[in-house]
């Protein structure tokens, strides 16, 4: 057992799955293994992957921690950004203000859960509707065109660094590194794991349980906002309903990545690997011309499949190390 609750079984399983899925798709279309396709997969996975990083912290903090409003935050962030850009605010300032708004939206979730003590699933369900409604009001229910904006801004979602997508190299991977450090290398990460494991014991050991969990919701709001900004830059459009699919998929990815739904376990590294699996499978299915309606079902099948494969593996390991 590692001090941080990190377990190797799930990451290895996910890595194997990613390779297997890729190999499977390559049988039908060998050209899926091209650099351009990997780039497209990355672009597809980065936004939901960022959201899942924040979601990992929230869920691992325990007490049924969950943030259902992440997609709504991403959509509202896009609309706020679009309105600011259309009001001729310079794009760096607009992005900065949007990030600030995103932190605020996360803070509302944090207060609802830790201060008002509303169950997370209810609190964030309420803010999901609240934020999504606000996005519709602010946008007048229509998409906001951003294609005429600064090419520097659009590069956030369309640029390349060293031949790889900008948002992967300059945003997602640094964020992943930061979150991994936060979780496994800092006192905050340690305290959040302890809180997720036993919040009564944590409070009586002098940990500020409410602040620790609250910070996770704020960070989750931040990652959802960054994902929304990247998405708007990628498509050149701010859509009020941009992230509506991300609410539940981000949770599925976190769980697939090995974070226990009861808190106190898991790692953003597992979450990142799960994001890779989902990105490959989703991209591979559309590349092989499967009907997109199958894609949602496939995520469910993968989720159950991993559990079914993992249980015998864990049992075998338990026997071996007894």
């Amino acid at each position, binding site marked *: 057992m590692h001090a941080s609750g990190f377990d190797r079984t799930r990451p290895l399983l996910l890595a194997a799955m990613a390779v297997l899925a890729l190999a499977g798709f390559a049988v039908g279309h060998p050209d899926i293994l091209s650099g351009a396709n990997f780039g497209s997969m990355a672009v597809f996975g980065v936004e939901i992957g960022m959201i899942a990083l924040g979601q990992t912290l929230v869920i691992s903090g325990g007490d049924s921690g969950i943030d259902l409003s992440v997609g709504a935050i991403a959509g509202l962030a896009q609309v706020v950004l679009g309105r600011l850009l259309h009001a001729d605010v310079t794009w760096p300032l607009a992005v900065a203000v949007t990030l600030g708004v995103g932190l605020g939206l996360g803070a509302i979730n944090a207060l609802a859960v830790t201060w008002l003590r509303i169950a997370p699933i209810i609190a964030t369900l309420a803010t999901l509707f609240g934020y999504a409604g606000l996005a519709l009001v602010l946008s007048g229910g229509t998409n906001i065109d951003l294609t005429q904006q600064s090419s520097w801004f659009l590069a956030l979602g369309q640029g390349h660094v060293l031949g790889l997508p900008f948002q992967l190299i300059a945003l997602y991977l640094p964020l992943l590194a930061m979150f991994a450090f936060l979780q496994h290398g800092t*006192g905050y990460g340690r305290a959040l794991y302890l809180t997720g494991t036993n919040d009564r014991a944590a409070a009586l050991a002098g940990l500020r349980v409410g602040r620790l969990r609250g910070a996770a919701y704020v960070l989750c709001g931040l990652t959802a906002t960054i994902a929304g900004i990247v998405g708007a830059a990628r498509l050149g459009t701010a859509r009020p309903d941009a992230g509506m699919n991300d609410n539940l998929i981000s949770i599925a990815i976190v769980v697939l990545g090995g974070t226990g739904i009861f808190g106190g*376990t898991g790692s953003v590294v597992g979450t990142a690997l799960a994001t890779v699996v989902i990105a490959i499978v989703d991209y591979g299915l559309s590349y092989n011309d499967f009907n997109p309606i199958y894609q949602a079902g496939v995520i469910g099948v993968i989720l159950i499949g991993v559990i079914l494969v993992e249980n015998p593996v864990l049992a075998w390991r338990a026997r071996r190390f007894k």
Partner: protein
Amino acid sequence: MAPVELKGIVKRFGGVVALDGVDLTLVPGETHALLGENGAGKSTLIRVMTGAIVPDEGSITVGGTPCRFTHPAQASAAGIAAVYQEPMIYPHLSVLENIFAGAEMTGRFGIVRRGAMASVVRPLLEQLDLPASLLVRRMSSLSIGFQQMVLITKALMLNAQVIIFDEPTSILSQAETDRLFVIIERLRRDGRAIVYITHRLDEIRRIASRVTVLTDGRVSGTALTSDLDEAKLLTLMAGKASRDYGKPLRDRAAPAHGKPALRITGLTRAGLYQNVDWDVPAGQVTGVYGLVGSGRSEVALAAFGALRPERGTIALEGRPIAPRDPAEAMRLGIGYLPEDRKLQGIFATKPLEANLTAGTIGRFRARGGRLDFAGLRDEALRLIGHYRIKARDETIGIGTLSGGNQQKALFARWAGQSLKVLILDEPTRGIDIGTKAEIHDFIRDLAAGGLAVVVISSDLPEVLAVSDRIIVMRRGGVIGVAEGAAMNAEAILASAVGADARAA
């Protein structure tokens, strides 16, 4: 009510014979102790009596009528009820709902009649000296001692004539045990037949008039307690030693008053404690003795910032304080080792190191906000060494350690910090005697080092062994402070259980 008779009860599980022709007669107004080692068949026998399992052979007669229980409801209809060691309860339901679970009183359209149920139970609660306000409490919010009381209430509500107690005291403190015994004695005098299962010899003498010993599924002897001396009982029990409660009392002069470290004055929170005064000097161990529900832990939690008081003052070294949470109380210099190791203490799946350092993580910061992992490890190893925690290494999950070592680790978590006041709530509950003695020595060491130590315990010998002064609490109030020669077991016990006031 006529006697219950079990004759020739046989029960096999696969090839294993759990009960091999057991005869047992239960007489109204008699407490019948059932003795036996683990695996002797005691539990199986109870499950036969309560209808949880059907015997392969043999007969049960209640008042001369043969009965065949195939379902627990039939046994309870025949007037047989059981109170288990760890009460089987519905934790999320109220006490009232637990008492009537499966036997709700309903009116027209099957609507539950709470008022009627409450009025049936209230006199029963009174008989057991329990407050009526208990009925609306959630079962999970009660201690095990109280949960057992609820089950006894349920047995009375069902008008049970035979009440079986299955090692009820094994996780109770001495004081809780004493109260339970008073109640069992009352039930017996009312003409009920009591079956009392235990492996503690000292309890049998106190409570039972007849003893039956089970060995390997057979009755190896039945006798009146009065005919048995210690030696005979011990032989019957096949060398089972009883726990030694008679620890010699330390001869201690009344201590000179140290500098007051923690002073609590007039602390009140309605329903939990009223007008509590605690005076806790530095360099001494102050014992707080009281039964379950005496408000002792709640007062401690108030000083620790975990449960806000309504009135009264808490002063630390002369300055009034009002900690809003444990973190603030810790910064002020107050520590609290919680009562319930599993629920409030350990992080079961986490390594020993993380458990030992949970309260001090903030101090281990290296460059760039990184945790000082080497420092954490060194601190953990220091505590493991100093407090002699038996563990393979500091990375092992604390949940895999023995209860005694888990408790030592929690103790070390607090004792290793520099504090002004350390409150220890049941510091040795449920751990072996050797570890207990070790922890007592550590407690004395802490006080000798100048710390103000409070030891809350319902284990009287423990309080007497470690304390310089003893505060006695009952029903949310302080009813006495004993020092020096006044620290006398009988007097303290009598005031804590209220025997002097009730004068039976």
